[in-house]
Structure formats: structure tokens, C-alpha cells
């Protein structure tokens, strides 16, 4: 997984509350068997009109937001489905950081598995960043993960909280499976104990064939 250390980039405003994962990536694009290539379908049904042309009013279709690396949003971003295709589409478009008032649980987890940094901030701070994101070419903010600090175009800094383990994994680009397999002996011990405590879960299940 790629590391996240510091990012300076264009921040695009997507200020609606409750932006669901169907809006982020509609179900018909989930038929892919790859993790890549979904960037062009990010926000597909609000980004393009029904004949496939770009909707000129949608923020990511306008300069400089076509190159946005940061999104600023409000409450409950990413609610709905568990589709990891949502963070994949964001990542493939070029987004590396989403800053919002709150996020849905599954989307939050999925994003960190893909090197995306999600930051939760109170309403007042989000209001400032939403203002900043309207500045077009000047909508440039810096996100510093190590120091847990966002720097606004006017130089003002905003501190943010982040779970230390998530921070550690992002800063170092750590692979979850590799980390867990370090605990293999403990997993083995659990299974040995559990086979005695709940033996009915370890017999061959009635399955296909």
C-alpha cells in the first residue's frame, strides 16, 4: 500500500450530507474484476448527463477541480453499501484525502485499506475548509499526517485527531495481511482452544456437491 505522509493539493467541495456509496459509484460499475479504472465513473450519475456528456455544473468537471486530490464534505459521507469500489474510484480519480464532519463506518475502514486519509473535523472547521475549497486555483491546502495538521491557503492551521494505529499504517504503507500474519501463533492457539470449546464449528460443513 502506498504511504501517506504530506499532501498539498486542490480541495474540491462536495458539501451535501449523506453522500451514499451508490452516488459515489453506481452498482452497474461494480462488475469489474479489477481494483483500478473506476476513476472515470466516480460520481457517475451526477457527473455525466444521461447521454454521457459531462455535466458542466458538477464540481469535478470544472478547473482546477479536475485535478483535485482532496475532497471537503459534511456529515455521514460514504453511507450505504460496503462496496470498496467507492474508495477505489476516489483513489483512481486522484483523491488521496477526504475531510468531513463524519463518515459511515464501513466506508471509513475501506478507505484506509487503500492509502486514503479520512479526517473528521467539527462543523466550524469544515465550514472554513468549504470556503477555501471554493477558491478555484487558490483552493490549495496542505495535509500533514505526521504532525496531524492542515494548513489553509491563508496560512492558518487546523489540528486533527487520528487513531494512532491507522496513522502508523498509513505513514508506513503497511499491508494488513502481513501485519496479521505476524500473529499466526496466536491464531493457531485460538483455533486449538476453540476446537475444544465449540467442536461443532470445526467438523466438515454440509456444502456443495
Amino acid at each position: 500500500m502506498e504511504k501517506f505522509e504530506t499532501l498539498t493539493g486542490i480541495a474540491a467541495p462536495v458539501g451535501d450530507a449523506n453522500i451514499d456509496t451508490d452516488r459515489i459509484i453506481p452498482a452497474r460499475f461494480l462488475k469489474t474484476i479489477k481494483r483500478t479504472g473506476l476513476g472515470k465513473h466516480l460520481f457517475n450519475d451526477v457527473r455525466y448527463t444521461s447521454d454521457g456528456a459531462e455535466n458542466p455544473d458538477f464540481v469535478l468537471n470544472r478547473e482546477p477541480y479536475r485535478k483535485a486530490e482532496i475532497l471537503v464534505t459534511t456529515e455521514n459521507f460514504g453511507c450505504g453499501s460496503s462496496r470498496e469500489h467507492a474508495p477505489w474510484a476516489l483513489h483512481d480519480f486522484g483523491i488521496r484525502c477526504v475531510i468531513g464532519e463524519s463518515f459511515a463506518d464501513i466506508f471509513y475502514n475501506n478507505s484506509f485499506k487503500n492509502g486514503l486519509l479520512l479526517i473528521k473535523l467539527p462543523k466550524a472547521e469544515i465550514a472554513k475548509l468549504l470556503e477555501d475549497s471554493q477558491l478555484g486555483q487558490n483552493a490549495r491546502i496542505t495535509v500533514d499526517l505526521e504532525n496531524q495538521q492542515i494548513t489553509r491557503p491563508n496560512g492558518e492551521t487546523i489540528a486533527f485527531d487520528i487513531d494512532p494505529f491507522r496513522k502508523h499504517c498509513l505513514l508506513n504503507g503497511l499491508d494488513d495481511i502481513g501485519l496479521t500474519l505476524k500473529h499466526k501463533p496466536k491464531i493457531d492457539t485460538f483455533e486449538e482452544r476453540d476446537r475444544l470449546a465449540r467442536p461443532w464449528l470445526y467438523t466438515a460443513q454440509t456444502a456443495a456437491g
Partner: protein
Amino acid sequence: MSKPRTLFDKIWDNHVVDTQPDGTCVIYIDKHLVHEVTSPQAFEGLRLAGRKVHRPDATIAVADHNVPTTDRSLGIEDPESRIQVETLEKNVAEFGVPYFAVDDVRQGIVHIIGPEQGLTQPGMTIVCGDSHTSTHGAFGALAFGIGTSEVEHVLATQTLIQRPAKNMRITVDGELPFGVTAKDMILAIIGKIGTAGGTGHVIEYAGSAVRALSMEGRMTVCNMSIEAGARAGLVAPDETTFEYLKGRPSAPKGAAWEAAVSYWKSLPSDPGAVYDTEIVMKAEDIQPFVTWGNSPEDALPIGATVPRPEEIADEGKRKNVERALGYMGLTGGMKLSDIKIDTVFIGSCTNGRIEDIRAAAAVAKGRRVAEGIRALVVPGSGLVKNQAEEEGLDKILLEAGFEWREAGCSMCLAMNADKLKPGERSASTSNRNFEGRQGPGGRTHLVSPAMAAAAAITGHLTDVRELVG
């Protein structure tokens, strides 16, 4: 060990493999359900890293989202859908994962086949790359949705890295009135606490009205816990649970059954266990519900009217309502029962079980689907379909003018041939009414099976109690 624990606390504690100083845990996963949409990249990841599936015996796979609900012997027309199902078939063969093929009678929606096979059991941790995994919580299992990277992690290690959630208890006491179902109960709950009301929590449903629900009713309630933002939903196991499980193919038998039941009886919350949030509702207050907008929280009793934006003080909320009314083609103040529909969908992991089909057939019997209405009934599995046919429910529905289909996710989410065209409007027993959920420009109203059947008969959202009162 003396602090009273909730059902969630007990299941969590029973599954911790490792705890870090900061509270992040590695937890063991007892059952991993797999479907074709969220697994291809996970199996590919295993392949690239040279890893195997750690416990194929604790894994079960099925294709449900892409499969046609019409004659499957003709194959899958859409090339991407076909490739995705074929990819799953190649993967389960290569990695030795048990699989119910499309032509297997046990095939169906992943959250319907688990319980009906007795694979879902109390006290288990159960995951799937699908947010409606919360369904299995009806058995007193900790069941939740995960993304594809976590699917790969479970395949490789049979564990997940997780932090424990907070505990919420929603107690519904009393008796549900006539014509009011489990679907209405959960819509009322989501309407009350909102689409983020449960974020960070697992919700345990308690109270006499919950106890009185059948297992299928409990599954409907737990299924939509995710729509309230909760990590998972739970109902404590009891005699209803054990009755349902006894004798099912993968349920323990003989001495193992006795040992399992004894273990399951230890799971309900201890007296005095503390919940971070408690909510109490009265069953008598719940009516047949419908959704009007583009969030499951936009739920109101059928007798109500569409909200008027001008009456909403908060600017942000008003804008959201205006947007929803625009998308849904509705006017503030209009009666919900005046909303005409053109499509009815009865099915999905929320309401695709035998009791749901019985409820629809009871309304449809001796009546006709209104002129111009397309009405589909999609049983949730081949076994549900067979049972419904044994009971003659298919004939009742077909005579009334409903279509009778094969098992799959169907019109819930526009990934297969069953979808809404732009501007079409459905009464649907599924779980999400987001913009475009059932097809770009499609307009979804969520209801119970009986309410959906009633809407099919009258051609508009209808109080089912007026039809069958």
C-alpha cells in the same frame, strides 16, 4: 469476569485473538460468506501473494447479484456480469471453497441461504463483502459487512483487525398492530434515529415486540440496521432461534446440538449490562410505513403527507428535501397514498423469504394487479421458491398478474436485467431508496411485502389495512 456484559461484549470477548495497547484487536471469524461482486480482487490478491484460503470449511460462496431471475439455462447475457460469475466459479474451484452453483436448488441471495442452511448460528462472528450481512444478527451472531481488502484478509487469515463498537439497545415493547410488520418496525426505527443514528454502535433489538417476531421478521429488522449506520444488529438467541435451527443441514446434531444450545443459552446480555445508548419505542405506535425520499430515514406512516420544504427551518435540511422532491418528482403536502407507481418488486435479502411471499399472496388472492403495473415476485433462494410452489403461492400470484421469478438480488440494485428505467417509480420491499439505486433516474419507495402487493393491486401507495381489514 464479574462486570455484566452485553451480548455483543460476550461475542467480542469470545473471539479476540490479540489486543494492542491502543485497543485495536485481531478477532477470529467463524463464518465467511462470499459472493461474486466483492471477491474477484480478493482472490486475485491471494493468488499474487501465493496464499491459500486458510479455512475453506468456514467459507461458503454463491452468485446472487448478477444472476438473471429469468431462465438461467440460457446463461448470462451481459458480458461483464457473466465474467464476474465465471470468475467466482474459477476461484472457488481453484481455492477449494464450497459453492452453491447457479443451477443448485440451494442457490440464492447470500443472506438468505446462510440462515436456511443452518450455517448462521448464535454467538458466531460472520462477515461478507456486503453491508446487509447484518441480517445474520437475528440469530445473536455478530455479523457485519466488509470491503474487498478485508475479504482478502479473512480468506488469508480467518481474522479481522477491528476495534470494538459501542452498544446500543432499542427496546420495542407491546404488540405490533394488525397489518404492521417487521419491515415497518425497522423503517420506523430508522425514521426515528436517522441514517447515522447507529454509527459506531451495534444495535441490540429487545422488548416483547421483538421477541414476538419470527426468525424471518428478526432478519428483516437486522438486515436494515446498516441503514441506520450501525455496524451490526443483534437479537438475543432464544427458543424461537433454536426451533428454527434444529435439523437444518449445517446445524449441529445429537450431542453436539445439546452442547451448542447450552453455549448459546449463555450468550444473552447479563442483567445490569450497560448500553452506551438506550432507545425505547412502543409497538402500538407503529403503522405501515413508506419512504418518500432518497434515504431510508425518509420514512413516514402511509397516512402522512410528503414534507413541505418551506416548513423546514434548517437550510441544509430544506435543501436536501428540495433535492429529494425534485429527484422523486413529488410535491410537498401531497398524500403519500396518492403516489402512483408503475413497478412493484417483492424480494431481496430484506423481504425475500417464505413468510414475505405468503404475506404478498394473502393480499393478492382473488385480486388483480392494476392495469399497466409491472409486478415481480422474486423468491430469495431455490428452496424458498420450491416451498412457495408447494404451498401454491406461485399460482395465486400468477393468477393475480404478478411475475414469478428465479432467486437472486434482482431489482434491489440494478446490477442484473431487473431495473427501473429513468422516471419509473417502484414500491419495493428492498432496503435502499438512494438516487439511482434501482436504475439511473429510478424512483424507489420502500415498503413491506403486504404493502407492496397492495400497491400492485391499486396502482398507488396504499394502506394495506384498507384492502384486507
